């Protein structure tokens, strides 16, 4: 019975449920479902960087914004169609993420947190004050993408595009963390000096982690701009960063399933508190505190203890989940 409540079963059911939502739900629920999928992408990308590679970075919301602004501005200023502008916006976020691996080679812990936070604030400043390009605090409208010849209105097209992107990005992350790359991330997190002494190229793997995280946030940003048909700086501020962090802490650091669980939990809380906007930040701050103090490994750790199928080994497993660690060592 507990196997039926395993990670894979629930994730498959979740994807199936999300695919079915537009057939019976009203537009508001469809919109919330779409936002949930974008938050899953954001949380998975951030968890790769923070939870797996151990890089305490605070620029995820800025990367999200760069993806959204890159996509939107290319459409508005140069008339680039959405299907070319979106990959370009995501790629821009990835390249900026890659560039952040340089300071991350010299900085760690609090210093890296401060440097990335400063970068995030600088990005927000650019969004706000470079009015001739970014349209300033008021933001700008972006044209809705067309899904012709598919018989889909723009909102449903974006919904299914987000679902495809989320499924693909979670699957890619799942394969990466179980590969040599994922193990190198965890090695760097657990002991940077030891990892380096064993010949693990710190710059290469930090660049992969920052680049992946930037790409995920950029893709979420590109989808976000099409979801709202509007881009403005307030969607990418410090609150947004706290929200992403809260998702991975509540779900479980260093766990992809945790990213999904955290993003789902926080999106639902966000919606429940939408009527009381001013209480959202307090609620998230309190939630973060409670989890950091009483449940630092997140919801997923509790699930792992109680249910089979929530293990996340750092290697590919054939057969029964959880039977792998050490299996290769047997003569």
């Amino acid at each position, binding site marked *: 019975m507990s196997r039926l409540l395993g990670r894979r079963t629930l994730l498959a059911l979740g994807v199936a449920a999300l695919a079915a939502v537009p057939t019976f739900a009203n537009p508001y629920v469809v919109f919330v479902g779409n936002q949930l999928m974008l938050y899953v992408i954001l949380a998975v990308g951030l968890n790769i960087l923070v939870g797996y590679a151990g890089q305490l970075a605070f620029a995820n919301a800025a990367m999200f914004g760069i993806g959204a602004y890159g996509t939107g501005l290319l459409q508005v200023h140069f008339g680039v169609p959405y299907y070319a502008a979106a990959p370009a916006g995501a790629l821009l976020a990835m390249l900026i993420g890659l560039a952040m691996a340089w300071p991350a080679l010299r900085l760690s812990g609090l210093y890296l947190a401060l440097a990335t936070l400063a970068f995030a604030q600088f990005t927000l400043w650019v969004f706000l004050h470079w009015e001739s390009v970014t349209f300033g605090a008021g933001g700008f409208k972006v044209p809705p993408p067309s899904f012709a010849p598919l018989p889909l209105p723009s909102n449903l097209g974006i919904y299914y595009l987000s679902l495809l992107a989320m499924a693909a990005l979670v699957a890619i992350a799942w394969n990466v963390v179980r590969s040599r790359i994922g193990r190198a991330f965890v090695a760097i997190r*657990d002991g940077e000096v030891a990892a380096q*002494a064993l010949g693990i190229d710190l710059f290469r793997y930090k660049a992969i982690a920052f680049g992946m995280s930037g790409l995920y946030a950029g893709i979420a940003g590109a989808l976000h701009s099409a979801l709202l048909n509007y881009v403005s700086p307030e969607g990418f501020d410090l609150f947004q960063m706290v929200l992403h962090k809260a998702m991975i802490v509540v779900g479980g650091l260093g766990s992809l399933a945790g990213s999904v669980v955290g993003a789902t939990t926080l999106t639902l809380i966000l919606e429940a508190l939408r009527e009381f906007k001013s209480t959202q930040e307090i609620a998230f701050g309190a939630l973060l505190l409670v989890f950091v103090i009483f449940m630092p490994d997140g919801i997923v750790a509790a699930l792992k203890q109680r249910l089979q199928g929530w293990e996340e080994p750092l290697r590919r497993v054939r057969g029964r989940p959880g039977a792998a660690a050490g299996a290769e060592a047997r003569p």
Partner: protein
Amino acid sequence: MLAVAHLNVWYGVTEILRDVSFDVPDGRIVALLGGNGSGKTTILNTLTGLVKPRAGSVLLAGEECAGLRADQIVRKGMVQVPQGREVFQSMSVVENLEMGAATRRDRAELRAGIEDMMGLFPTLARKSRQRAGSLSGGEQQMLAIARALMARPRCLLMDEPSAGLSPVVVDTMIDAILALHRRGLTILLVEQNVGVAAAAADSAHVLQNGEIAFSGPAASLLDNPEVLRSYLGR
């Protein structure tokens, strides 16, 4: 096997190592001793590319390693067992061993290497699925050594392997080092514990303030009151 010549290392405006030269002959164990702050760990970090020297050469089997990146030096066959064990706490024993072979690609070789380590360290074989962070101090030290051996080093650099271990576990550690010696491995053993150096090494160098102050057979260290008093604070 390893020839270090006229090594000079500075941290900013402070000279840490001054004209350090020594050899580690093929298949031998050479100990490097000294008190806190004498420059022992800096030598190891320089040999493995974690610190760049200002001058000097580091020849491994005739190939220059000074100034290379850490991963390049590991590929050439010089691997460090870091101080304080530093196993990857959240990984299993086997996953730690796999990380030791991070510079190698052949999966059959990887499996053979893991089996070899399990034979060499039976305790690790019994706990292969266990998380490294839950092992005892001695087991973690064994794992750190086994992990470094997975890179198939020609020269193993060990940074204070006896630090923080109980006397019984230290004896086991010495046995393990001697077992590696019998396999023909060249070892540079950095230690504060004169007893460990005397029991395991063939020859020894004593560092003081970044310079080699004494060189001689390791077994003679315990009989040399001047070395014990002046350089090792005993």
